């Protein structure tokens, strides 16, 4: 599909492929990418032909090395920046997709890169992947959900270790910490992601979507209510 500058979008056999496409700058996230992701995710959400989504990065070196800092310090005001954050809530849109989303991670997965992958449902990484949340070293905190999504995925103790130290970890340690689901050889990364998406796309889609919803909404509820939700959703 056309018109995008920072991403590419492709649909093949019920699978949507979203590729972060600024390989010359390690796919760093900028305002343009935000707007394009916002738009494409909106289309994917409504597209009943899409059964599963794969999010990946173009080029050899990175899935996404974080935010484009050249755009920082240029916002008109904190209140204006806050307003745009919620007018174009790209992370909320990621989380609201009814289809399962698989993140295929290689090379640098830093800052917003990790955060974007945490908005996905399953994370596969190649052996060369490196992870880190360097925000505190810049005098800021993560703003694409990491303070919320990371502890919910890997637990409080491990999350604070990554967030408060800003240290880098490799794919093996990320696997051990449960930050990612599996590690594969680099040349197997995209094929593995695709075969996983194929598998999911082969199931009954009502069941797939119901499971995703019951799990993600259920985590926000007391157990009793979660159990009620599970019953109502499956019927």
């Amino acid at each position, binding site marked *: 599909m056309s018109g995008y500058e920072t991403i590419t979008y492709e649909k093949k056999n019920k699978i949507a492929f979203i590729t972060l496409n600024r390989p010359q700058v390690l796919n760093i996230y900028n305002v343009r990418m935000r707007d394009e992701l916002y738009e494409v995710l909106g289309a994917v959400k409504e597209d009943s032909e899409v059964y599963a989504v794969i999010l990946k990065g173009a080029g050899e070196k990175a899935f996404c090395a974080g935010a484009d*800092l050249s755009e920082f310090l240029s916002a008109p005001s904190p*209140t204006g920046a806050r307003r745009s954050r919620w007018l174009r809530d790209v992370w909320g849109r990621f989380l609201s997709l009814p289809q399962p989303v698989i993140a295929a991670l290689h090379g640098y997965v830093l800052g917003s890169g990790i955060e974007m992958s945490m908005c996905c449902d399953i994370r596969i990484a190649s052996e060369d992947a490196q992870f880190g949340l360097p*925000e505190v070293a*810049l005098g800021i905190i993560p703003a694409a959900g990491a303070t919320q999504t990371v*502890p*919910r995925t890997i*637990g*409080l103790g491990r999350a604070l270790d990554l967030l408060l*130290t*800003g240290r880098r970890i490799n794919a093996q340690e990320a696997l051990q910490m449960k930050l990612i689901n599996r590690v594969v050889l680099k040349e197997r990364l995209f094929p593995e992601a695709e075969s996983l998406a194929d598998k999911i796309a082969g199931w009954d889609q009502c069941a797939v979507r119901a499971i995703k919803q019951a799990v993600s909404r259920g985590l926000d509820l007391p157990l009793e209510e979660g159990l009620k939700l599970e019953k109502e959703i499956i019927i």
Partner: protein
Amino acid sequence: MKGKLEITHPAEGLALLTINGTGKNNHADVGLAGELRQLCEDINFDSGIRAVIITGAARKGFCSGTAGGKKSAFSLSGPVAALNCPVIAAISGEASGMGLELALACDIRLASVRARFSLPHIEKGLVPSDGATQRLPRLVGRAKAMELMLTGETITARDALQIGLVNRVLPQKELLPYALEMGRNMAGKASLALKYCKEAVMEGLDMALGQGLHLEGDLYFLLHTTADRTEGITAFKEKRKPRFKGK
């Protein structure tokens, strides 16, 4: 002043609290709890302190419950959980009962190979009452938390690492140097960002995800007003080390 809790400043912005309780296992009592409460209050008021390390005195354990395992009316974890800067526990030897509950209130737990962990309350017909029934399942999951509390069993540093109770296990000699290095590192970062990061994580876990994301966003944009943020980003662009002022 010779109390049961010593405070030193091994680096600028870093406070090291050393617990010197009774006996080899470093038992807690009401005196220690009082000193800890006072110190933690002082630290929260003193914007010069940007990171805290808590450890046990040399050749003693980290900290254990009351001598004899008696029920206690005081709290060690409460004041520490209320600290708004990052807190590292450096644990060697025994961390049991209330001592383990104290460690659970810290943000990062480092252990030496000699560390041992247990919640033996059940053996005396008691329940953990300084936070473990709430903090432990949130940290290691329900199954492992139940096992530790319902059996009263002691686990090793390796086991603790595997279940996520501690972040790292180090040789005995390297424990404190490692903790100090980590603490120095944190104390050199932007203190407001560290505090807000901790606040977003801790408060956010008690909220629905959507609310937590809003909290994170609000704290993020509040940091837009700080000099440290401008310095951090400018330094990155200029490829130099930032000089943070906590403002």
